[in-house]
């Protein structure tokens, strides 16, 4: 085993994991506050990717700067979906939630096909195929940026939830809807804001990913699947869990590919997921309250 290869495998794993964490933050926030698992999450990501692509295409903006467009646009999408759709399934059994959002997934994915067509669209930037070279180890520049966005957004979200009144109200609403309403919190408003923030975070993830991955109507699906696995692994609604879960899955995938076989990445990461579930049925970071 070469040391430089080993280090590269770790770096690859961390970068992939960072992307998984990034796409999972919005999903876990939505569950944490609104109590919904959105199976159309990957499609929200896809919409974020298209927003960035078109902003780059039409205005020549730097892809990372398009965050100022993709985040507000996706905030709006999230808030609207909450007000007109998710509102009806809050607290409903998992099954009802799954299938309503599966319906939404059908609509968004095929709606995108009707509007944008099937072709892959790839934006071009100076850094999309650049890398930072640390000795023999290469760190993909766009993925490093995605990693930085993950850390920044997670910290901001953490600060928002713990320091601001709105954030505290969200936490209160998450823990007990009725009590929150009794002490004068407008839970309805809290929920659409939270859904909006969740979608905005997902839009940011889409922006980061579109710097190095082409976008098509089906682009979100693979990321969506990884996001569900990530948030379950790290316990639904737990921000730290999403980040740690993403990194574990990313490292497992990278090690599986290098040291088992090139098609064993997901085999290893999903098997680890199943094993963790056996030992901790509520994920790695389950707290007593979330039972």
């Amino acid at each position, binding site marked *: 085993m070469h040391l430089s290869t080993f280090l590269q495998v770790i770096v*690859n794993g961390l970068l992939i994991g960072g992307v998984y964490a990034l796409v999972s933050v919005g999903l876990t926030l939505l569950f944490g506050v609104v109590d919904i698992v959105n199976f159309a999450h990957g499609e929200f990501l896809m919409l974020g990717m298209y927003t960035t692509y078109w902003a780059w295409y039409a205005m020549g903006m730097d892809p990372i700067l398009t965050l100022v467009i993709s985040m507000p646009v996706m905030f709006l999408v999230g808030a609207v979906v909450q007000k007109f759709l998710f509102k009806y399934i809050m607290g409903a059994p998992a099954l009802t939630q799954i299938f309503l959002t599966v319906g939404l997934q059908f609509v968004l994915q095929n709606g995108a096909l009707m509007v944008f067509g*099937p072709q892959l669209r790839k934006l071009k930037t100076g850094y999309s195929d650049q890398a930072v070279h640390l000795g023999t180890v290469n760190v993909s520049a766009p993925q490093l940026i995605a990693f930085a966005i993950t850390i920044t957004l997670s910290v901001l979200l953490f600060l928002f939830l713990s320091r601001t009144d709105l954030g505290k109200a969200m936490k209160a609403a998450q823990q007990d809807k009725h009590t929150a309403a009794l002490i004068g919190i407008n839970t309805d408003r809290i929920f659409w804001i939270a859904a909006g923030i969740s979608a905005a975070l997902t839009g940011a993830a889409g922006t980061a990913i579109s710097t190095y991955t082409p976008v098509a109507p089906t682009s979100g699906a693979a990321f969506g699947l990884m996001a569900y696995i990530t948030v379950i692994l790290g316990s639904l609604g737990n921000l730290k869990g999403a980040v740690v879960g993403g990194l574990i899955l990313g490292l497992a995938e*990278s090690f599986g590919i290098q040291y088992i076989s090139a098609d064993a990445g997901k085999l290893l990461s999903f098997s680890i997921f199943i094993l963790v579930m056996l030992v901790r049925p509520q994920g790695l970071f389950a707290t007593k309250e979330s039972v």
Partner: protein
Amino acid sequence: MKRNFTKVLVVVLAFALLFLAGCGSSSQGSATQTQTQVKDVTIGVLYPTSGDQAVLGQAALNAVKLAADDINAAGGIKSLGGAKIKLDIVDPGSATESARSATENIIKDKPSALTGDYLSALSMVTSEVAERAKIPFVTASVSDALSSRGYKYFFQVSPKSSMFGATQIEFAKKVLVDQKGMAPKAAIVFENTSYGQSTSKGLVDAAKKMGFDVVLNESYDANFTDANPLVTKIKASGATILFPVSYLQDAILIQKAIKQQNVKIFTIGGGAGYLMPDFYNALGKDGEGVISVASWNNDVNKPGVDDIAKRYQAKYGSLLTEHSGEAYSATWAIAKAIDLAKSADPQKIRDSLATLKLDAGYPGDIMPGGQLEFDSTGWNKSVHPVMIQWQDGIPRTIYPDQDAKTQVKLDF
């Protein structure tokens, strides 16, 4: 207990009746016939225009449309009094079930022949349905399995997937190893799909036969979101030449990761993604000079090819790529068979296809190799793959010499 039973049986019935009503009205609709003296000849066309496979499906469908227009403009089917070709187009989707239903839907309209399905998995289904319905099906799918089943109504204009590897390795040996002095250390990676698994076998066999040291031979998950781990593995293998069999997204991500990780390796693509205009567009200048195998290309050395490619580009605004060229050829082959059969009867057209040999210079005779002619398994027996290189944004045929009009450019 009976009550629930009863209840739903009636529901079932109500739906069944509704359904019947639907069938009745639609069959009336299709019964109305054209008033023209010469009846149109219907060809059923199945190309996926939704889902993941939509890009190539739409492109190939356009080529079939162009071929039908060309055939009709040239006077239609002469032996049938200038009958026009009419296309009956249905989307087979990307799954077994939808392909089956779509094929049956087309057969309902009594076509004279079928064409389409560039995906082998779809062709497996369509060919089976067509075989049972006794309607000839002419496809450009490449899987070896298709023509190995002893079907009588199945015809394949394209080279088989097992042949690609031999062409790629032959080229690599001749040009890269013998002329340029590269070490014959090959890494073969392929997506874990039907196309990847069937093509890679030919590659590995040919590489071993031609004296290559195969240092890596692995399939990878086609749904990956990141190619860096795979490329790290390729780099660690120490290979000098990479033979990836990839679709579009993975091809793009692999090429980008190779650049990011600064891997010194020469890539010879395995067709599919490496041939698509979107591949070049996504990579920009890094796409320039990329070499790949192809089952057809828009400048193979056959009469009329340039003209077809030019008109296709003018009409649909994109390059005429491998599957589309084959689709064009398949449509003309069907037209010729109908003309020779002097009938729109599927059985006669099948018999005519089985003995068909296109004249050199006939508009549809654009496949590399000899004149289009099917052997007893239904395969176009003289066809072979070619090698292409992206030069100035266009895939140019560079090998074998008799098909190529352009020289390979290697700047090392």
